[in-house]
């Protein structure tokens, strides 16, 4: 099935909105050399971890009870 003929819109959607298939950018800091993409991922992980700890979790009513363990 040639998707580009059947549904051009779906074909271009499947082909990615942002084209990352070009030479990447890199962050050089002293002897450290990291790709921007990796720095973003690592940064997001740290932000996510901090957010996960700080953002309140919805509380359910608690009940006293024996352990089900």
């Amino acid at each position, binding site marked *: 099935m040639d998707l580009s003929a059947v549904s051009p819109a779906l074909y271009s959607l499947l082909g990615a909105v*942002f084209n990352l298939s070009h*030479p990447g950018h890199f962050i050089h800091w002293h002897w450290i*050399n*990291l790709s921007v993409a*990796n720095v*973003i991922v690592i940064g997001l992980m740290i932000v996510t971890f901090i957010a996960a*700890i700080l953002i309140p979790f919805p509380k359910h009513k608690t009940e006293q009870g024996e352990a089900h363990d």
Partner: protein
Amino acid sequence: MSRKKFNQDRDVGEWKGKYAPYDIIKEGTIALLVVGILVLGLAVFFGSPDEHAITIKQWSTQSTQDFIATAATELDGSSFIANYGPPYTNTPNAAQKIGPIALPEITGVRIPINTAEDFVLNPLRSLPGQPALHQALNTYATASAKQQQAWSTAYANNAATTNSDGSITYNVKYVNGQVVMPPGNYGPVSTIMQYETEMARSGALDQALITGGDFYTTNYTKPSLFLADGQYLANVGAAGNLGGEQWGMMNETGAFPGQAWLWLYTLLYQIPPYSTSWAANADAMVWFTMIILTGILMFLPFIPGLRSIPRWTRVYKLIWRDHYRQA
């Protein structure tokens, strides 16, 4: 019965406090939906990289001088792979060591590679017709080992020279379909290298290396090792910031995120002593270090001091702040 003293980095008391409803199946279903939508969005917005594989044909067409110079070192046995040591060759003292121990020598040569035969002579022998080629192959095969070495080394040394800064000066040229070398006593090697170059540029060498005359294969060891000995593959990698000294193990082609979880493995290659006094054994030493560090991570629960870091850093007070507030 004697019991160990309570150690709050190792032990817990029994929970006598409250319980709350917690729907783990619903949570799992929501997680699947959320992750599914996230992954769908990432795939739609960013796609995935797919840079075409490099063939021997491409290498020998786009970087002919490098191909000829590399093939010459495979024939005369001076290439990196020809002197790799186990698992490819029996070269003494080539295997990397951890202290006095060379682990590859213990496991041995399990993937034998003879670069002259595998990358040059055998593929050429498979070509039908070509009387001049088979005459040259015959002359080479029937000469003494010393004569073979004299011809092939003269060819390899004159084809290209490695400068003190690691760059390569190519003296061989490829003009109008002819390999042009500086004058020298190369015997039948000139003809052999001419046909090797033409075989490569036609695509036939790819097939000969991949299948080795057989029908099925799924093993790409030979063409991969041949490619890896040349500068062409290395230059494509370096241009994409994928080289070892460029922290390349963490990187993906293009501008995609790569393997951030390999940060420590990658980092070790960049720092002394791995990059300096241990450089000749860098791979072995990095792996050895990573195994030790992984062991420490794995057995952290049993390591006093390290297992106290969570308590000392007090991040838990944030995680369980409601619990401590109510206690």
